[in-house]
């Protein structure tokens, strides 16, 4: 970890695809600095040779037969779409 994390709030909000107001940017810059300052604590520990743990228990690749099981109809699956027509989600024009 670097000594003082530098936070480019516009870069992060762009990666996260969240528009932020100026007030939010100021507030999150401050909060993130303070939280990242706190997590620097982990640097006190020597973790060389320690296996990273992604998961509490070893899970090996789980296989199943490739067969259709879901009984959900397209109509049902589309019920929550904010805009739809003929079982398709309507989105703004992507290609001009």
């Amino acid at each position: 970890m670097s000594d003082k994390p530098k936070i480019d709030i516009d870069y992060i909000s762009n990666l996260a695809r969240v528009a932020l107001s100026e007030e939010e940017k100021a507030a999150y810059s401050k909060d993130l600095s303070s939280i990242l300052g706190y997590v620097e604590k982990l640097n006190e520990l020597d973790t060389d040779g320690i296996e990273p743990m992604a998961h509490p228990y070893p899970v090996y690749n789980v296989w199943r037969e490739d067969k259709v099981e879901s009984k959900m109809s397209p109509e049902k699956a589309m019920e929550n779409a904010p805009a739809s027509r003929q079982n398709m989600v309507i989105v703004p024009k992507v290609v001009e």
Partner: protein
Amino acid sequence: MSDTLYYKSASELAALLEKKEISAVELIQSIINRTKAVDERVGAFNSFDEVDAIAQAGASDARRSDGQSLGPLDGIPIGIKDVLAVTGQPLTCSSKMLEKFVSPYDATCIEKLKASGAVLWGRLNMDEFAMGSSTENSATKVCSNPWNLDHVPGGSSGGSAAAVAAGEAIVSLGSDTGGSIRQPASHCGVVGLKPTYGRVSRYGLAAFASSLDQVGPMGRSVTDVAMVLQAISGHDDRDSTSFKSEVADYVKALSDNAGKKWTLGLPKEYFDTASDAASMEPVLKAIEFYKSIGCEVKEVSLPHTEYAVATYYIVATAEASSNLARYDGVRYTHRAENYDDHIDLYFQSRAEGFGSEVKRRIMLGTYVLSSGYYDAYYLKAQKVRTLIRNDFMKAYEEVDALIAPTSPQPAFKKGEKTSDPLSMYLSDIYTISANLAGIPAMSIPCGFSADGLPIGLQILGKPFMEEELLSVGHAFEQAHDFTNQHPKL
């Protein structure tokens, strides 16, 4: 009789239903009346569907009169945290993002509850997307602690705890990513169990941090919690992280293990830190109780405890930033009305749909996963996570279970911590290690603070040994009378 049904235990009610002294419809009606009388003040429910609940209860009564009862939970009302999918019911996660979402399918734990005949009752309030420790991050409404309405119920499963404490549900389901079942249980004076990671399927649970999330039961007694755990546990093909191991008979284990002299560990790091002295008193008394019944109590060490909060807020926010990418304004969420183009649709929909704590965590998680920082934060945290888990496994070589406080203080006042996210995060100090290590842990009521707020005792157990954990808690509960103490509302 139906006036007082709402404060009876699930096991007592199961016996009354079985003997046909009461009907399931009568029981749900008592719960509905109680909810209507108190929930305006408590705010435990985001919504409820009275007609649907009465229909479920009616079906339960019909089964019972046909001799087709599905078991002890048949007809028992269970409140559901608004984070689990129930076909045809809203699933809001207390977020504007999912304000209009209606579940097209059942979560596996819900399917199992339906198979047990339980009456699914309402959608319980929570911190938005389960992110928070006070339910103050709910976009739906304020939720209050039934013991003192000026205080928070804890979180994120604040509604699940408050509903059970206030008699608005007999039992409930919550979810626990860093203490979200146990901490509100301790603040509201109820029992809450986070099962071992993998014990209960996560299929149909809106994901927060997938390597930490677990669904679990809450109730007013250990037996009630055991009954619900029994119903929802087990392997599920639709969750590859659910574990293929035997599910014990949890209720039977309570009587089988009665009188057993456990070896219990006191993790010294949980007693060294800045806990409020008065709220430690009941915990210390509970330790004396276990000694008095012949349990061996010894000090153990979990040396990496002080690193747990830092580890957690890296792992949990990283996973959350990735999981919450699905709420994009395109397929099933809130969509902004005004945007420039298809990319801006994401930016604006997410800006409008997410509340401030959710955005904060998405930002933090995005940062720690961003190019150049991954090794320094996420990978480092995953390595420390291994050390935290190893601490527990070493302690369990010597002891059957650990006992500790659940929370460093009783329920705080509303607004007290909202301006300081880090201090809010630090209030989870005793609960998050269990999620990082994947072990089961439970909070049971063990006393009250000077101003009458409940205090919880946390019991942490070995992986997949929930029956032991429950039995240790049951021994304490049997010798005390917290089950029948209720808030004045």
